[in-house]
């Protein structure tokens, strides 16, 4: 069964080997003269003040949380969509109830301001 993914393995190998070849060719060709000024962090000519690796804003995390909820909903929706035309009314109503429950959660998150870009 895994052989049906052979083509993907080949594409993955090409996708990794090709950049490595390019990087190798570049490494042969390019000059190597690092100076301290060249290796400074770029900030349009200014010196950076303070650390960069600080704690990030909470709003990114909120978006990621709601994304996970909807991503799992997607995983449930796809098998239903494939078999949609051969299922009866019961399956449609059941899935609409499922989407409605998730929409309730989405509405709550919206109301509480989790989707605002703070």
């Amino acid at each position, binding site marked *: 069964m895994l052989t049906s993914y052979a083509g993907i393995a*080949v594409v993955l190998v090409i996708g990794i080997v090709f950049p490595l070849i390019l990087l190798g060719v570049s490494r042969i060709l390019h000059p190597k003269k690092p100076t301290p000024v060249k*290796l*400074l*962090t770029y900030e349009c000519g200014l010196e950076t003040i303070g650390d*960069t690796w600080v704690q990030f804003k909470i709003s990114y995390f909120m978006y990621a949380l709601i994304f996970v909820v909807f991503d799992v909903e997607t995983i449930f*929706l*796809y098998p239903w969509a494939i078999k949609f035309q051969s299922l009866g009314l019961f399956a*449609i109503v059941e899935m609409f109830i499922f989407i409605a429950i998730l929409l309730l959660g989405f509405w709550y998150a919206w109301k509480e301001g989790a989707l605002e*870009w703070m």
Partner: protein
Amino acid sequence: MQIFIDLANLIRGWITGMGISEAAAEIVMTAVGAVAVIVFILIHVILLILAERRVSAFFQLRKGPNRLGPIGIGQVLADVVKTLGKEDIIPAGADKFVFKIASTTFFATALLAYAVIPFGEGMIIQDLNIGIFYFIAIGSTATMSVLMAGWSSNNKYAMIGGMRGVAQMISYEIPMVFSLLGVVMLAGSLKMSDIVEAQKNMWFIVPQFIAFLIYYIAATAEINRAPFDLPEGEQELVAGFFIEYSGIRWALFAMAEYANMVAVSAIATTLFLGGWNAPFGLTFIPPFVWFMLKLYVMIFTFLWVRWTFPRLRVDHLMHFGWKFLIPASLANILVTGIGIYIYRAITG
């Protein structure tokens, strides 16, 4: 007409003639097909960099690069030589390992999407049973490379660009997935060849027009292209998450970005514009040529939209994705479901 299929059969006959078993010949043929498709796509991507500059120039009432070669074709070679020869500067404060692998992973994930695209009848690298689902899964992995590049550069612009890029990409992932659900409902299968077969009589853009628009907007946001290119906004974040990359590492990012654009155009062509089906019954043109024509039209619209709309501000971007596109795409699913049910009930 079927020159690629005949060529493939020729190679397969030659391989099995050397005494290799059927299963191994199958794998070798897949590998040959994969190499051929990837080379084909990479040539397109490299030419697309020049094409974008020329097309953008014409939209802005100027000519693009035209000094090197007849229509600037020499520019491609000049760019390749330049990027290969540039010094590889890795900032002193950067996380070296993650910095080095970010461009490679971005490129690899961009190429992986091509494994399920049907370029013509029987011309897919791997006709998976879960074709579309695989494409969506691969699309999600691109966000990690953006985050790796942004974080490891130890540069404030890069970090902001990377975080915004990830937030944008995950936000627009959901409308994209939901809009493709309508197509799956109509076709009844995730397999790419089944979906193209189901569009023999009518392209899915006709019943799923809203889904096509939602997919188009969400795909533009997924590939970080204008008007959603805030993570690499030139006027604000000087190049966003790949600001500290120079030379061939930057070129890998650029090529991967264009490869992403061609990939989402190919998916839009396959799912909404009928894939390799000929419109109006003009079947004397090979299906492969039809696919490429539709692909070029889609790519042209991506280039066109870049210079048509102003860039979205980041809070507008998130508001639009979460509060407008997700309800719209869910409504599309509901309406499609009810529509198919009523149609089935009426026609029996």
